[in-house]
């Protein structure tokens, strides 16, 4: 395979400026991650410790094989929301007894581990990762149940008006836990504290339950509810203590004497699973890219307008910087080709401009080829969208773009998306955006994801408004329009930022560009726990 050359001018002003901007964001990212790691804060953590309990992240660290990696998912969920950053949940992929597992834990220091919309979305994402990639599922349960406070301080009537969710559609998590079991993906619950009412079904639906002496409490109704319902006076130990459940009810399978003993038992359970990965094996002999990893910081500009060569990214993430390009002369705004990352064979699609008919067709062909040889796909997003204009519409851009989306949607090899810079409109879909069954999606710090660019959107709204005024025969207030456009652009900009997307769990997390290669490698290894198999079946190709 040929080694990619780098034409990057590291002495240029733009490189230096880009690097400064990205570094500024990575520092902000580190600060936010630091904040997220503190969970409910020092006081709450001290309270936990005083009760002989470990903070959630410590529990997870104790579970992981020493010195093995841990890929946290959506660490910044609920940033810029009324909830604690991180959402009171930690979800991630970690190695336990040499088995890649999906590990999920309630953080007891954050509102006693209660559920909210953010962490529920994160939890469902965790279950999805376990299911799609066939990763044994380990949950550290300790939850006060639903957070009944909702979005505190709001006008209740306004809240009702805004709500789009209803209890009637809740509970999918229990369905998914048992579905994992049905799919022969073991589920393990380690109950660290109270798990009441609906929460009781978290262990209830699990394959293996480890309860901790004098600490785990699992019941459908706690002592107050029992008193109200039947008049019975019951202590919580009698009602749902670890001793009772492991000796009397049989809901618990293992009785641990303390937290670290429970974690030890959990490791033993994973060890006995005799887990065999079903996917491709990586070639163990590989070399690092020949170009400098740090250069990835200087590619993306803050306003995203100045372009960069996607091959500069590819040259810094593939083994030995090797890349065998497919159809280099045809549809060059989409770069396609084969490479290896940490010894895993992959197909890579990366944007070098807007999508044209030729580049879309090339993508459709390339995706089919990768399906033919069961090769996972990496999508490197820097896409403002499909090309627009009369010539292109007449040339069938919608028809050809549909081919690409058809191929992406029906492809059955795993997709990994890294959003480097912009990912706008249908371009996001065509590059296997979050909604297209992508196994993993990560964003770079300066990335923006939206229906279209904020400036374009404000401009479009202004044009549409002017047209409506004309139709109605009223005067168009230029000043008011300018004001409106400015506000619209500001909020569109805020909502398009990578950090906002990541806080809404619209991706799996924001990463430092320098971690891209290893993040992809961890994803590829996790993906290989399941079968990697392509398809020949696609939707009807519009010809």
């Amino acid at each position: 395979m040929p080694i990619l050359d780098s034409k990057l001018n590291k002495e240029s002003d733009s490189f230096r400026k880009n690097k400064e901007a990205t570094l500024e964001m990575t520092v902000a990212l580190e600060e936010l991650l630091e904040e997220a790691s503190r969970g409910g804060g020092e006081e709450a953590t001290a309270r936990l410790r005083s009760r002989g309990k470990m903070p959630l992240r410590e529990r997870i660290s104790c579970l992981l094989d020493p010195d093995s990696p841990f890929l946290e998912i959506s660490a910044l969920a609920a940033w810029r929301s009324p909830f604690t950053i991180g959402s009171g949940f930690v979800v991630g992929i970690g190695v336990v007894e040499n088995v890649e597992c999906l590990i999920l834990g309630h953080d007891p220091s954050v509102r006693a581990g209660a559920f909210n919309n953010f962490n529920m979305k994160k939890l469902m994402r965790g279950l999805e990762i376990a299911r799609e990639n066939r990763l044994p599922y380990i949950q550290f349960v300790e939850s006060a149940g639903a957070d009944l406070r909702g979005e505190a301080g709001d006008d209740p009537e306004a809240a009702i008006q805004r709500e789009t969710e209803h209890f009637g559609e809740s509970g999918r998590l229990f369905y998914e836990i048992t579905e994992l079991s049905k799919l022969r993906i073991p589920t393990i619950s380690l109950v660290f504290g109270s798990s009441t009412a609906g929460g009781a079904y978290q262990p209830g639906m699990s394959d293996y339950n480890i309860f901790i002496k004098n600490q785990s409490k699992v019941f459908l109704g706690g002592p107050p509810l029992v008193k109200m319902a039947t008049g019975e006076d019951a202590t919580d130990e009698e009602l749902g203590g670890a001793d009772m459940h492991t000796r009397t009810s049989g809901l618990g399978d293992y009785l641990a004497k303390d937290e670290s003993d429970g974690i030890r038992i959990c490791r033993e359970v994973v060890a006995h699973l005799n887990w065999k990965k079903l996917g491709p094996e990586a070639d163990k002999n590989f070399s690092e890219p020949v170009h400098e990893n740090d250069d990835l910081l200087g590619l993306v500009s803050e306003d995203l307008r100045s372009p960069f060569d996607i091959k500069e990214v590819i040259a810094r993430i593939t083994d030995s910087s090797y890349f065998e390009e497919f159809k280099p002369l045809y549809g060059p705004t989409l770069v396609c080709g084969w490479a290896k990352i940490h010894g895993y064979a992959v197909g890579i699609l990366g944007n070098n401009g807007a999508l044209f008919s030729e580049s879309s067709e090339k993508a459709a062909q390339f995706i089919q080829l990768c399906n033919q040889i069961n090769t996972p796909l990496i999508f490197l997003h820097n896409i403002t969208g499909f090309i627009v204009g009369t010539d292109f519409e007449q040339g069938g851009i919608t028809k050809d773009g549909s081919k690409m989306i058809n191929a992406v949607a029906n492809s059955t090899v795993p997709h990994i998306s890294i959003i480097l810079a912009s990912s706008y409109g249908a371009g996001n879909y065509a590059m296997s955006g979050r909604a297209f069954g992508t196994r993993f999606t990560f964003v770079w710090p300066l990335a923006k994801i939206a229906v279209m660019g904020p400036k374009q959107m404000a401009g479009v709204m202004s044009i549409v408004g002017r047209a409506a005024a004309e139709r109605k025969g009223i005067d168009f207030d230029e000043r008011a329009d300018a004001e409106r456009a400015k506000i619209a652009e500001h909020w569109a900009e805020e909502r398009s930022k990578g950090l906002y997307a990541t806080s809404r769990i619209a991706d799996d997390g924001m990463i430092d560009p320098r971690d891209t290669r290893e993040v992809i490698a961890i994803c590829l290894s996790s993906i290989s726990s399941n079968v990697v198999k392509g398809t020949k079946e696609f939707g009807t190709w519009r010809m």
Partner: protein
Amino acid sequence: MEDVKPIERILIANRGEIARRIIKTCRKMNIVPICVYAETDSEAPFVNEADLAINLEGRTSLETYLNHEKLIDACKLTNADAVHPGYGFLSENHEFAKTVIDNGINWIGPSPEIIKSMGDKLSAKEIMKKAKVPTLPSVKIEQNTDIKAAADKIGYPLLVKASAGGGGKGMRVVREKEGLASAIDGAQREAKNAFGDSTVFLEKWLEDTRHVEVQIIGDQHGNIIHCYERECSIQRRHQKIIEEAPSSAVTPKIRKELGETAVNAAKAINYFSTGTVEFLLSDQGYYFLEVNTRLQVEHPVTEEILGIDLVQEQISIAENKKLSVSQKDLEINGHAIEARIYAEDPEKNFLPSPGVVQRWMPGNQSLTRFDSGVEEGTTVPSEFDPMIAKVISHASTRRQAAKDLAQALKSTKLYGIKNNKEFLESTLLHENFLEGDTTTDFIEKTNPPRARSISTSELEEAAIAVVMESQALNRSSAKVMQSIRSGWRNSVMPPQSLELKTKKKQLLIRYQSKRNGTFEIIDSEGNKRPVRLYTSGNGKLDFELEKTRVKYDVIKIGNKWFVQNFRGHIEFEEIPRDSQDGEEENSIEIKAPMPGAVIKTLKNEGDLVLKGDLILILEAMKMEHQIVAPRKAKISRMHAGVGDQVTNNQVLVSFEDEHEEKK
């Protein structure tokens, strides 16, 4: 005297280090070495190195290396034409020597008559007294001996000494009359167990004396010469641990006198083969102690300063050849010192500590000679003497020989078994030793450190080496995501950590890898120290800690980490990450500290014992170990009785659980 045909096959009626030593000379003389072995020695190096070996089918000394019948059978089975007894075991057993000769097999050693006449220390003293060799006053203890009167006649302090055997077994120093009876009782029991003869005698005990002995060789044609003296004053538990030649206290005048006295003593009994005349040397003079009618453990120091092979001389003499050297050929060249490495615990009164030698890599071999009985993986069995190796240095000066030897010990890797290596080092480098101020009470008087002292910063640096090796091994043994950087994180998680402990200190080392492949060590005070790793994962650690490049050899065996660099050796125990049951404060049982046999019980089930009360005596490694009550308690059960063989950690005594009682 009839001609003896050349020896072709030697059966070595011994084991360990000395068996290997004899094999070496056999090879030089083109003689077939044959070994015999006990079950526990079946995989020992000496058995591997022999051309032929016979399984003696037993575990104890009595069943094997002391069993005349089995040894004679082994000779017949292998057509051995000579027996070399080595030292210890049957080397000074005149009956066995006679049996060997009666079976038409050559005995490599003096005649049974000579052995017999010198075997009993008391009668040997009488013979020497007659030959005008200076001796110390002594009284034999018989059934009707008035012990008190006998002791008073000699005067305190005195020594209770077994008449048979040697090696410090059955010896007790008594300073006041109160301890006399129990000392005699203990010495008799030990002598009975070790030599099958409980005869003991009392002898005057002199303070500030040195143990000096003269090596002699004689052929069967009446030629007897001496090979100068050795000094073996450095002893613990009455056993020599450091020996040297020549003695720093012997002047040329005394040397000449000692040599002549030894030759005269030998002539008085028509001695032939190699032998040793032992003396006590004090300011007042020298006194005959005994004659050892065998090769000594410490013979190499003599070989080194004279450039001779004493085993070869022994074999030639047995072949009825004349001595290959004459007295005037022998000139002392420089100074040699030997140190004996034992499997023992210097911090627990040198208690034998049998086990498996997990790692054995002799150090500084260009300057020192290693006569060892072990290789990596060799078991030092509890049934026999726990000596692992003898290390011998030879230099132009005594001081240089001591330093070379200390350096050889320091750079020797010996892991997995408790040993006295560091203690030997600190003894050799003790200023009093270097000055030649060596009396038999050297150890008690100067009390050299039992282990080297290690500074906090050295300990931390070594712990960091362990941590770096640990993470490298964890990564290389990972079955998934092996290619990902050590401890990779994309969020803020607690750092990696490893908890280690030494005998004195517990250390928690926290660390995290950085994107550029370096590590950050977070010490106990929270200080961050950068580490840049050059080599790891193969036992050879090479890294920069801040600015300093450091190198360590690191190996993990079980849950123990062994770390060594130019400063010496440090041992860490890894504390498992999961909580373990703590030792109960109120122990409810006593476990055997090592495998052995119960030889006496002093308490019964139901007895109330106070802290420190003697409950039973365990014999292991030919030593008595007292099992005492750890606290005031009532014995609920004695799990072993007299004669029972117990394994390591086997429960010996159970106490009633007070908590249970209260319920």
